[in-house]
């Protein structure tokens, strides 16, 4: 049952993306399950992108932003947080497992944390199994 989840990651260029870079520099080990998309700010991740990823069969979606107070655009991440709280509920009420969707604050200095999050999320998704909407699942 070794299933390799396919995770789509939206990473803010100022923090989580830099954190992923650092994870590489530090030679942290984490599973090759995540495909990162660099975005200007986690606040620019429209809920539509997340639904599109899940509808097209991503097993999980990770949105990574800066810690509170650290947003390059002052309050982008606060908006992300509110958005994701409501989006999660909407997805869940529609009958989709909200555990496939995760929001994390990871700074550019937290390379290790990035690796840990990917590892943990991968393990959780392995337990959940493939995304049920995947055509070939």
């Amino acid at each position, binding site marked *: 049952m070794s299933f390799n989840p396919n995770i789509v990651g939206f990473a803010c260029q100022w923090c989580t993306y830099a954190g992923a870079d650092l994870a590489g520099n530090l030679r942290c080990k984490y599973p090759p399950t995540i495909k990162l998309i660099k975005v200007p700010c986690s606040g620019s991740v429209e*809920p539509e992108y997340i*639904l599109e990823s899940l*509808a097209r069969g991503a097993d999980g979606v990770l949105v990574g932003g800066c810690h509170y107070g650290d947003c390059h655009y002052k309050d982008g991440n606060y908006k992300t947080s*509110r958005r994701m709280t*409501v989006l999660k509920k*909407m997805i*869940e*009420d*529609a*009958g989709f497992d909200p555990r496939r969707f995760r929001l994390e604050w990871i700074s550019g200095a937290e390379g290790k944390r990035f690796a840990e999050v990917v590892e943990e999320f991968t393990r959780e998704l392995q337990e959940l199994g493939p995304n049920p909407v995947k055509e070939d699942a």
Partner: protein
Amino acid sequence: MAEKIKFGFLLAGGCAGCEMALVDMSEKLLDALGHLDVVFWAPTVADVKYKDLEAMEDGYIDLAFVDGMIRNTENEHTVKVLRQKSKTLVAFGACASLGGIAALGDCHSQEELFSQAYKDTFSTDNPDGIYPQPECTWEGKYDLTLPAFTNRVSTIDQLVEVDYFVGGCPPHHDFIAQLVQAIVSGNLPAKGSWLTSGKAVCDICKRNPADHDQKRLPIGEVFRTVDGRPDEDKCLLQQGYICFGPVTQGDCGASCLNVNIPCRGCGGPIPGVRDYGARCVSTITSSLKDDETAEEFVKKFNDMAKFCYRYSYSAGILNQKLTPGK
């Protein structure tokens, strides 16, 4: 005078409210009828049968409207036939374009829907729990059939190609009058478009803070419509009454706001929106003051999917892929 436009109207899985709205054009409809030759209008208005439609040549009808969504095998069949017989096909109203209210049924299993409709409702007297069957034989000799329930609700364009979309539950009659005028004069945009003004409800709404030199402020408290009576003049969203006016097309003339009710999105999404519910979440939450208000919002509205996709569940990006009722 130019030749009359051969016009057809089909009620698929809708409630006929859209057809009523067309009739509500009153004198304007009479004017329009001067240009229209109604060759098909079933099963509601004209005395034509499905078999008459089937007998028509392909492309015989110049312009056809469908109201209602696809909910059973009859809808599937007639919409396919109508598409074949029509040069231009318009998905007319929220149900046809987006799924409409009935599409919320996809949040439930078929068993739940049937037991609600045919067993549990207090006015239903059905002790044996008999459900409608697509086929049965009566007295051992008569084979009877009924249209079968489809697995899920679909919009018209999920089944056949649609040339134009019109929102509204139902579309406002003034708007239909403009629309019919545009069609009669041949003044139509590119195929696949929505036939609308492209303006949001907020653009039309008299309460828009921008029209009163007021800034939009973060919302600190969220209310449901049952929680109290909002100020009749101020923006409802600003008062904490969640209103989807910012992301909805306003061809209704902001009808709900005119009677102190928040917009729930029947006009369909403004141009550029791929998923109505997701954009509601995005827009509304950006107006909320902080995480606590977002939590309060989630707590107050116990079914966020039904709330945000009230008229557009079938058109949601993810929803069509989910198994109805889980």
